[in-house]
């Protein structure tokens, strides 16, 4: 399999991962809003921390994509 085809499959997987994390974050925002309106404030900070961990994961995946592109360009300058 060529590098580009491998990359496409991998990026599809990475995009799915990022999308899944975002859906979890959206759910966290909804649940936090519900909790805030119900005065159940004890879950708000854990929700914010988990959401931040999701952002770190997404940022890590994005960094990996950029790093992968750099390596591909270095090994094949024509692209």
């Amino acid at each position, binding site marked *: 399999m060529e590098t*580009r085809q491998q990359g*496409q499959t991998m*990026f599809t997987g*990475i*995009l799915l991962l*990022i*999308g899944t*994390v*975002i859906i979890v*974050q*959206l759910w*966290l*925002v909804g649940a*936090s*809003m519900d*909790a*805030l309106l*119900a*005065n159940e*404030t004890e879950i*708000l*900070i854990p*929700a*914010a921390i988990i*959401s*931040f961990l*999701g*952002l770190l994961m*997404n*940022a890590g*995946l*994005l960094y990996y*994509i950029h790093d992968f*592109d750099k390596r591909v360009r270095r090994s094949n300058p024509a692209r």
Partner: protein
Amino acid sequence: MPEVLKPDSLKILNNPSQEPQWREDFPIRWENDHYVTRRELAKFLTLGSAFLVIANVVMAFFGKFRGAEQYPRAFVANASAIPESGSMLFRYPTDRDPCILVRAKSGELRAYSQTCTHLSCAVVHRAQDGVLSCPCHMGLFSETEGRPVAGPPIRPLPRILLDQQGDQVFAIGVEV
């Protein structure tokens, strides 16, 4: 002899190393378009992820630093005026907040917000079943705890804290 202006494509034929002017406006080649779009989508999603974190942090901030609400002490009724399995409507803490005072089967006085936690219809006391009933979607709440026992509501009715001094019953706060 006047100079004839040539189109960009002819310029390139004459000088293949020179890129046409339109290349500045459309820098991505057709074969790379799909390749770039995925990266842009990943960036966009990560940016959205950052906004969601900000929303969560703002809510956590509000939840942590929002001061406890102060409720007035307000006379509700004389306890002797509420018969067994009876109920009475009042408003607390403001005139726009309808509440219901009920005497449960056990004889205790309980008070709740009259606003159903499903879609804000007014609940009524069904003494024979020991419940507060929302007629809109048949939501039922326990008269002793205010928790939902049937129908679509999932959150309990806000409870009005009562203080009884002799025969007089006062509302002193709201427990959500």
